[in-house]
């Protein structure tokens, strides 16, 4: 019985992984285009399968004297993924919701700070899908 449950979980996990891979790969390829040649990719890949009102979040340290490019993509066209950047006191620093759901935006950082980035699907345009967030930077 235990083996059966474990197998079921592994199968489900494997299936979800394949699902994520299939959904996310073309989105990642498209999103990569927004990290243009001026920017150095941070070497990491961030993705989440979102449904409804789910919010994907992650924290990062942004270093002073650096301009970061955030690219946020989902679905088969730009503008489906909304994202917001908050400081450690939960002050809103930026959201693409105020800029026609722009698929990428630059943050020029004067002093290092810790931020939280939240990404969620535009409920008016998408009910579920893979959210991909890519980060590049330049001096």
């Amino acid at each position: 019985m235990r083996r059966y449950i474990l197998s079921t979980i592994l199968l489900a996990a494997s299936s979800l992984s394949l699902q994520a891979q299939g959904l996310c790969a073309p989105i990642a390829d498209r999103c990569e285009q927004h990290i243009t040649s001026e920017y150095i990719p941070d070497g990491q890949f961030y993705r989440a399968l979102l449904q409804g009102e789910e919010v994907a979040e992650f924290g990062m340290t942004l270093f002073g004297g650096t301009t970061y490019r955030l690219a946020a993509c989902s679905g088969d066209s730009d503008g489906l993924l909304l994202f917001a950047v908050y400081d450690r006191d939960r002050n809103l620093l930026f959201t693409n919701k105020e800029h026609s759901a722009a698929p990428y935006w630059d943050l020029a950082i004067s002093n290092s700070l810790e931020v939280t980035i939240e990404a969620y699907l535009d409920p008016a345009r998408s009910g579920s899908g893979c959210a991909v967030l890519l980060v590049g930077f330049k001096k």
Partner: protein
Amino acid sequence: MGLVLTLAACGGSDTPPQDTVVDSSQVAKGAEDARIVQLGGRNFSIPSPVQAAYAIRGAGLNYNAALLAGTDKAGAITERPRRSLFLGMLGADMAYVTVHGDGQKALATLQTIERVGSELELSNAFDRALIERFKSNLGSEDSLLRFSGVAFRAADQYLKDNDRMDVSTYVLAGGWLESLHLTVSDPAAADNAELMARIGEQRRSLDDLVALIGSLPADEQDLRLLEGLKALQVTFSGITSTYTYEAPVTEVAKRTTYINSKTGVTITSEQFARIATQVSELRSMILA
């Protein structure tokens, strides 16, 4: 439901040294957090080693090839966690030699990355084509750093697609540790306020790494590394920082927002020395 099966919970930036339990229920920590899921199985980002390399160069520290992990160690490191850590260290070394204009060393490092990457079944990201592109752009620092970033991102994507979070995590940890090693190994760093602040700003990344490794299945955790990083956390917990919010300014035409908030970090020379020692010990353990 889908993500709950595959995600590991992680601590936040202020998480004190503690064991992190893998429990999908922690994906939702409260009513307000119930909608929150994590990107790629973790909820944070580790700074790129390229940024550390830039900071080292910007501070005017001398280039010292003797600090590198050593490409000759590739054959001796066979266990998967250490091999993954070593790959991350090589990535940081490559950033360091590249920003210091040592193209030949960069190429040698990349060739070792290809070898170690192949041993970790990452040939999709680190292959002969990458080396050829690298060779033909040896004079262009930006191109080399970009190739490297694209390759490490491709590797990270492949690892996540294939549920190999252990390798992904250790590559990040190795890169972070090596970057810190390259920063603190020169005593002159202690005289540079900007670099000292940068060291202190690594606290959150360290917390995140500890949470990340702690969230791996028990049989994939490198316990010695984890203990070493937790000891390092104790040292970092004594570093003080301040933060003052200032309203950002956005230039819509440039698609740019200027973040002007102020941060201050205070790190003592004793803390610096302690960090240097602990990082050296951890690194020796990996490369032994």
